[in-house]
């Protein structure tokens, strides 16, 4: 059993002024190995907090999160992370970025080089090994970030709005890439996004989270990710079911936002 299990996860932030923010309240879920979960929600609903706890950057106030029945209490190689801006080390070349994790573990040089070649090939950056990272476009940088994360062979991949900063065309290509990698490697993936379409397209499961306190508002099981492996993504978007789901979720989030605004006024 290599599941990600969340049990009554609570996260309370205290500001220096004494205000408390309930970022997560009693979040419980189980994610099976090989599942792709997308998380959607308005800003401030605790998506990123959840991800940071999963990555081990934050400790929950109460409750626990276990991966493979081991409690998460710090960053680890078994949980890879992909950030919105890539967070690449711009002083290194593409290959050096990709093999960063292996170098830190001081693995065999030749084996590492071979692995880097393989992964660069998978993410579509063959021959870019010696390019300085700062010369890459946004989409290419995200490909490097993906390769860098995957080369460590993590059990769980956490993606924090990985495609948020890309233009529409690149984004579509990257969405296919994420699906392809998910299929080929069979990794468990949690992907956070702002885009309803993306959440629907990529998510095998989809959580819509609600803010104040941050909680899971609604859960969906979706067929589109499976379809996306065979069909063109644009075709799926024309699907009737897809449209109705999209409208439903959009209005849900819209209401949440209205509610927040109302509270503030």
């Amino acid at each position, binding site marked *: 059993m290599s599941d990600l299990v969340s049990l009554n996860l609570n996260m309370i932030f205290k500001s220096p002024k004494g205000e408390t923010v309930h970022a997560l309240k009693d979040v419980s879920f189980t994610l099976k190995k090989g599942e792709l979960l997308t998380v959607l929600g308005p800003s401030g609903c605790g998506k990123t907090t959840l991800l940071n706890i999963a990555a081990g950057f934050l400790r929950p106030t109460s409750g626990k999160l276990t991966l493979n029945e081991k409690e998460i209490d710090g*960053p*680890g190689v078994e949980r*890879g992370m992909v950030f919105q801006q890539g*967070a690449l080390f711009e*002083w290194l070349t593409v290959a050096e970025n990709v093999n960063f994790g292996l170098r*830190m573990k001081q693995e065999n040089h030749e084996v590492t080089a071979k692995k880097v070649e393989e992964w660069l090939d998978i993410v579509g950056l063959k021959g870019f090994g010696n390019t*300085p990272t700062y010369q890459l476009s946004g989409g290419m940088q995200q490909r490097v970030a993906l390769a*860098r994360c995957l080369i460590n062979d993590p059990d769980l991949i956490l993606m924090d709005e990985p495609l948020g900063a890309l233009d529409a065309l690149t984004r579509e290509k990257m969405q296919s890439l994420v699906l392809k990698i998910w299929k080929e490697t069979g990794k468990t993936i949690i992907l956070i996004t702002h885009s309803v379409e993306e959440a629907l397209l990529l998510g095998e499961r989809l959580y819509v989270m609600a803010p104040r306190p941050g909680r899971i508002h609604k859960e969906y099981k979706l067929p589109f990710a499976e379809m996306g492996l065979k069909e063109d993504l644009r075709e799926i978007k024309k699907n009737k079911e897809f449209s109705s789901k999209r409208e439903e979720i959009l209005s849900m989030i819209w209401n949440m936002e209205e509610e927040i605004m109302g509270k503030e006024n």
Partner: protein
Amino acid sequence: MLTQFLTILIFVAIIGCILYGRRLIKTEKVDAVFGNPERAKGGTHWVIVGSSAILLVWLYYSWDIAKGFYPKSANELCQVAKINESLLGLKYQFPIEEREFKSTSIIKIENKNLQRVTNEIQNSSDLNDQQKNILVRYIDQTKKLIPLLTNEDLMEMNTKLEIQELTEQIKLLSSDFQKKDYPFETAEQKAERLKAVSEQGSWGIITVRTGTGSIENTIEVPMVPETNKGLKFDYAAKELKLINDKFFKLRNHNLQFKNSIKKLKDEIKSYRKSLDDSDEIASTFAKDIVKIARRIEYASIYPPAALNEMKNAIIEFDNVQKDQQGGLWLIDLILFPAGTIVSSGTSCSEQGSGRWLPKPSDTFNKFVLMSKPSIGYKNIPLLWIEMIDVSSIIGFILPDWIADILPGEYPVHTNEGVVKQNFKGKVLKIVTGDFKLFKIPVPYGHIWDSFLRVFLGLVFGIIIGVPLGLFMGLNRFAKGFFDPLIELYRPVPPLAWAPLIISVLGIDNTGKVFLLFMVSLSIMIISARAGASGTQLSKIHAAHSLGASKRQILRHVIFPNSLPEILTGIRVAVGMCWGTLVAAEFLAGTTGIGFVENVAKKYFQYEVIWITIFIMGMLGLLFDITLRKIIDKTIPWRGKG
């Protein structure tokens, strides 16, 4: 020779580049919009025009063009100055450079003075009527002295003859002066003069008396006439000086005047004697009147027409000498801007910009001399290489106590008086550098010393500042603990520390290196701290989740991420250190560029001052360019992350 060539080259370059630039502007009609920044790009030809113009202004205002094209002109102008000086006294007697005769103006002034004293006497309440009458009578008597001098009929024959003789002398000089072989120098005199000429050297710095080992003994303008033209002026000046002296000794006193003034003086003298202490005011007035009378006596007042002949002779001579100058006056006017040599009188010095703005050729010569290891500045060259045995370097680096802590004793001589070396003794020899190895070249000199101080100060600053800065950027304790310390000493201008540090640590390298260390330390700490605390959290997160340890994150993420800030900090620190060093070397020291400038200032060696300024600018520029190259090479990602 070089100056002439350079001047012509500059003219050609300026004209050529301007023509090229104009042609280019005419062909560039495409971007005719005013303010288009594209138009300001490129243009080496205008750079050439600009730098050539600077060089030309320098050549011109330092009078180097004059020196290049007319090397003898300064010497000749100096001789002209001598004539001017001799003529000055004579000319002032006549309305040549003044508005009126000297006699006329003296009479005017003294009449005015007498009138003023009269008024004061009349209005004085401290004098009684009797005193007033006596004093006014004296004034009248004094006034009557003047016509005795200005009446031509009363003039003595002797005086007339003397004036005539002087006039004849001037006339003779005028006619002689135009002769080709004037001043009729004998071969012997000529040989003597030429010997003096060769000894005095020439205008500016060309030769050096190597015997003294210093280059301080250079002359501005050679005094002994080098050319025949100069000789003429020099000789005539001497003759004129004699005439001048004779004329000033001459007094236009006839018998009648002598008697009258004697009588007046005696009368006033006896009158003053007759007065007692209570009549001090009357006595003072009487004294004033005698003073005026005496001034009239010594003022050389002549009858209005008596000196006409002489005046004409002087004017004639003046014209003749100006004639004989030939093109020299034009050279003086055009090639000696912002000053002149002529006004220096007999001292023969550059009066004007040529004095403080050294000639490029002189500066170059001096620079070459200062660079020579055999001459240098204060016996130290600017930059040279010395062969030093490696052993002495090893001996300097290894501390002597290494031998002391070894077990055993140092060798003791035996009964036979022989010293047998043992291991401990051998080690001592090594650590004190008492052995021979191969020699390596080591640079030394003023520039090297200054450079080394900056370099060492900077290196120590970086070695301590960067780790401390990174630590402060990452740790709340370190930030809080070290911050007050740094913020206390950092805002103090580095030079304010200099007197303290130099008096504690000495005027040699230690004090200066420590001062520069202080300067660079605060800059390095602040930049390293900014670099460390500016690391994006996501990068650290990424490194964490890729399995990097704390140490690895510091080494592979935080340090390279702070490199742009650290390198910029180094660049700033170099500039600050350089400025501080020069000022610190002003304060105290025995070597270094700042020291050279400070000494040169004391001896008014303008060339050396300019050379040091130039060297400092060039070295500063060199440091900056080098660092910029390093920055471009090491952190090409800067600003693109």
